[in-house]
């Protein structure tokens, strides 16, 4: 039996709510709107609702597993459930996938910044500067990272909600009928899977359970985070569809940026896009930092080190080099978002569910024998 260490438990439920709200809408609003609209068209609202519910269910499975051993890290007790020959390879895969996801989002971030705001700046400079910030966040640990999410929560959520509000005069609400008449069930299903894979990322909370105060009440914070981020995403997607329609949206790289550029309320707001985008970029920092932190912590626990700090800078450097050299050109990340990222995310999110299933079966068998 693992001993409870209450000195670790410093992440509050409010911090979890604020962190995961920003974590969920960050890349979804930034990079996933075009693939989602391409897949689901006007049925994207069904995808958002169903995907949100499915993502919460995946997270719930992870939560149930964590409640069976709330004082331990999955990396440390997992071999008791599925045996060390499956557990360790699986955990190394999770470590690599988390590192890959951090590098992938960093690459998307760099492409976005260089294409829109810093065209002459070399990639390595943006990566290194952003990487230094991420390394500091990761080195500080999960408690500091979750606390930092509180700082700009209202500003980041306010700015993302403001995108459609400022552009409301230009929206063509006549298209609203298409949300009911343009039925596309296969598209809605595919979109739901994409959305579920993004919302299912909340299941990664299992790797941080010993840091959370009152983990038994965790699900409520996650549920509210999922709802809030769902509303933020839906408002943005609907505004984009009202403004551009599905055909034009699916041909855009960054529909939200186009929406922000449509803001023509007054001279004061005309050049506001860098400011609005700035707060949204902060949410991306949180997402990359969490993926990297999970990778670093996973490695620390698997190797058997006391703290994660010695690995933080090394893994950050690896993430930066990966993001620079793992793709040959800028088109590859966009292609991967359409062809494999949903399966990759669902696979990673379902790993705790696999452990839960085996744990349930084993305890059921034990009960029958006794």
């Amino acid at each position, binding site marked *: 039996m693992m001993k409870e260490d209450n000195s670790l438990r410093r992440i509050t439920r409010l911090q979890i709510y604020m962190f995961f709200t920003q974590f969920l809408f960050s890349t979804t609003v930034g990079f996933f709107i075009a693939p989602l609209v391409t897949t689901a068209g006007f049925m994207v609202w069904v995808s958002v609702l169903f995907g949100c519910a499915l993502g919460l269910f995946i997270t719930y499975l992870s939560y149930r597993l964590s409640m069976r051993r709330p004082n331990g890290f999955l990396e440390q007790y997992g071999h008791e459930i599925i045996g060390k020959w499956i557990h360790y390879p699986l955990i190394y895969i999770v470590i690599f996938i988390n590192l890959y996801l951090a590098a992938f989002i960093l690459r998307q971030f760099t492409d976005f910044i260089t294409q829109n705001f810093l065209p002459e700046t070399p990639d390595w400079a943006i990566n290194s500067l952003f990487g230094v910030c991420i390394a500091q966040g990761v080195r500080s640990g999960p408690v500091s990272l979750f606390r930092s999410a509180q700082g700009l929560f209202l500003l980041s959520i306010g700015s993302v909600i403001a995108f459609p509000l400022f552009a409301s005069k230009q929206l063509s609400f006549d298209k609203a009928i298409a949300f009911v008449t343009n039925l596309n069930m296969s598209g809605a299903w595919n979109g739901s899977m994409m959305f579920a894979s993004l919302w299912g990322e909340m299941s990664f909370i299992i790797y941080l359970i010993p840091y959370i105060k009152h983990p038994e009440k965790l699900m409520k914070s996650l549920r509210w985070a999922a709802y809030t981020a769902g509303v933020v995403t839906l408002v943005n997607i609907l505004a984009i569809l009202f403004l551009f329609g599905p055909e034009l949206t699916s041909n855009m790289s960054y529909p939200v940026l186009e929406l922000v550029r449509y803001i023509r309320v007054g001279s004061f707001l005309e050049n506001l896009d860098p400011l609005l985008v700035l707060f949204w970029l902060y949410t991306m920092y949180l997402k990359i930092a969490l993926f990297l932190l999970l990778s670093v912590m996973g490695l620390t626990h698997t190797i058997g080190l*006391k703290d994660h700090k010695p690995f933080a800078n090394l*893994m950050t*450097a*690896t993430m930066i*080099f990966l993001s620079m050299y*793992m793709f040959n050109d800028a088109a*590859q990340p966009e292609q991967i978002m359409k062809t*494999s990222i949903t399966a990759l995310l669902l696979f990673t999110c379902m790993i705790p569910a696999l452990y839960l299933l085996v744990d349930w079966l084993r305890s059921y068998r034990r009960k029958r024998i006794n």
Partner: protein
Amino acid sequence: MISIAVVFGMIGYIEWRSLQRSNRKQKTQRRVVILSLLLMLGMEAMYINRNHLSIGLIIDSLFDPIQRWIFIG
């Protein structure tokens, strides 16, 4: 290529020195040095083969069939 070796060499050395100064176990120091060497070699290999072998595309080829199976149509 040289920059990868320099970056990992510097970070590895700084981490190793700080572990030494805080009197951490020999085993911990060894693990940090080994990891920095492994990561450096991995990144060098990726850099050298970046035109023939893209890690992104390898992962894509692994998960693309699963995604085709999940998606309808």
